[in-house]
């Protein structure tokens, strides 16, 4: 018996969706098996996850809360990946946005009105994230330095920076043994939908960004340039498209949106800066959402929501079944593996020859 791989001639959208769904289902089945092995009833676990995240208003709102930063980051990543800029640094860019907004709220204009503080926080958050992404971007475009590693290293540096600030110059109160900054002033709090933690300004920014970027990548000149650069740098040169310009723009957007996500987490949820609670790996999770969404911002939006449900599910597992939050990482890893494995089915027809 031999297995022969024949390259597919045409990949229809239906096939693409089917294979992706199948991959996700297969991944979840596999994880179900892992649950079984460590003594947890998988069916029970999944019911808990989905009921908890979608079954009631509270769960749904929490899911949306978790979706917001993933949505923002994955939209930005979809753009960057399209241009073949593998930005693994959304995590650090998010932290830099958080730092920037904390700085504004606590030390720059703590006594101003909401109408000034909030937009300023968003602007500075975007800028901080964008700049953090631009450093590896410049190294890549001018010096050909691999951006996967540099963006990653910037994550660790941002993490250390956050720890330094919260334990050092910005040290505020200590709660349950963990260092935090002071609370940001009430005027800097983002408004939420009543009864929930959904900080809707960030949500609106995220949805608008996804829509805008979708339109721009598929229909505009710059979107076309991004796709050409991502497809072939040589062809881009031949077409007179500036690789540098495209790379810098995509990284700016990518880093900026991640920075905005950071602002949302600080000003909308925690209301203070702390190294441990701000980002629980949203930057990395967003990579999966973007990949799952096939680098299409609208599909990535759906994927982000799906992952949001898994994250809330992870919280529930932690509370009800005493599993550490790290389980989410396992989910992410397995899903990603199954998706890229499934991509094989997408690109090739598998023939079994007896």
């Amino acid at each position, binding site marked *: 018996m031999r297995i022969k791989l024949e*390259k597919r001639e045409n990949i229809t959208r239906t096939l693409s969706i089917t294979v992706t769904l199948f991959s996700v289902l297969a991944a979840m089945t596999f994880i179900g098996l892992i649950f079984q092995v460590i003594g947890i009833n998988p069916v029970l676990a999944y019911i808990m996850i989905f009921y908890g995240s979608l079954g009631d208003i509270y769960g749904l709102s929490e899911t949306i809360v978790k979706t917001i930063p993933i949505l923002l980051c994955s939209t930005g990543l979809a753009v960057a990946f399209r241009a073949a800029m*593998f930005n*693994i640094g959304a995590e650090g860019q998010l932290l830099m946005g958080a730092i920037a907004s904390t700085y504004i709220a606590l030390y720059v204009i703590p006594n101003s009105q909401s109408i000034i503080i909030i937009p300023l926080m968003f602007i500075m958050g975007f800028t901080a994230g964008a700049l953090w992404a631009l450093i*590896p971007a410049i*190294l890549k475009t001018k*010096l*050909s*330095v*691999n951006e*996967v*590693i*540099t963006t*990653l*290293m*910037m994550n*660790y*540096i941002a993490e*250390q*920076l956050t*720890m*330094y600030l919260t*334990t*050092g110059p910005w040290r505020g109160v200590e709660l349950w043994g963990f260092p935090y900054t002071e609370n940001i002033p009430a005027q800097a709090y983002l408004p939420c939908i009543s009864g929930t933690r959904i900080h809707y300004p960030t949500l609106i920014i995220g949805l608008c960004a996804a829509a805008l970027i979708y339109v721009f990548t598929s229909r505009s000149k710059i979107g076309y340039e991004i796709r050409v650069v991502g497809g072939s740098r040589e062809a881009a040169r031949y077409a007179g498209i500036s690789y540098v310009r495209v790379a810098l723009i995509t990284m700016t957007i990518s880093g900026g949106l991640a920075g905005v996500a950071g602002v949302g987490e600080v000003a909308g949820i925690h209301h203070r800066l702390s190294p441990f609670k701000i980002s629980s790996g949203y930057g*990395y999770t967003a*990579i999966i959402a973007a*990949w799952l969404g096939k680098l299409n911002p609208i599909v990535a939006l759906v994927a982000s929501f799906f992952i949001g449900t898994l994250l809330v599910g992870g919280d529930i597992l932690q509370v009800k079944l005493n*599993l*550490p939050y*790290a*389980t*989410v*990482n*396992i*989910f*992410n*890893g*397995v899903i*990603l*593996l199954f998706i*890229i*494995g499934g*991509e*094989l089915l997408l*690109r090739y027809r598998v023939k079994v020859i007896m």
Partner: protein
Amino acid sequence: MIGDVESLLNAALRVSTPLLFATLGEIYTEKSGVINLGLEGIMAMGALTAFSITLLTGNIIFGVIAATIIGGIMGFIHAFMSIALRANQIVSGLAITMLGLGISELIGRIHYTGVPLPQRLPIIPIPYLSNILIFGPLLFNHDPLTYLSLILAFAMWFILFKTKAGIIIRAVGENPFAADTIGINVYIVRYLCTVIGGMLTGLGGAYLSVVYRPAFQPGMTAGLGWIAVALTIFALWSPLRAIFGAALFGGLRALEFRLQPLGIPPNIVATLPYLFTIIVLTIGTRGIVRRIVEAPSSLGVPYVRGEK
């Protein structure tokens, strides 16, 4: 003062051991044309496995071997995704990192955080040599695994550049089509190298939890796996240069807390290895552009026979 420097250099060499193991492994993997970004996750799993098996069996050696095997299995998964399934190698590596970090944290947090390890690896001073002034205690007063890493570096260098096996590996990474035409099985060579890379990384992780600390803590790899990837490029894919690079980074790591009394916050020093990696990568890449070096041309590209 000399004692301080000595203890610093000593610590540097010890931290560099896990780095060196992982880097040596990744050098072989990349030389054959596969890029494995899953090192961080594999190292974490290696740390967990070594710790738990050592605790279980009471014997460090079993723990270390188990970690090596687990590393090999994870390397195999990456090889399977990259070679058989022709997946995007960067994404596959990331997935394995997440998986490895997740599983090790899951099991580690529940069972092993805060648990002490009664077993220890002995420090074996080499007779006569370890008494040489200054360098003696520095180079010849270590545990067996550190010695192993140095011996391996030399052995792997020799194999890679002076034997037929090494020629085959380099050929596969440089021009898989040509290698295939000559009759070399490109796929098997790549599988082997990726698995070896995983094994050595697992071994590096074992060192962390069983010798360096020794303890298990989620997140204890702290980016070492990623630094190993950078080191592979910095060392220009040569096992001997990897020794130098690993020692350099080990030194930076060791500096972290020693500078605190001087008023330099440890967090800032902690950024140094990562900062340095970026700098080193920048310099290394520029050098590459200028000369014909050992960067494997087919790195990251799946090989398919007969496909244009």
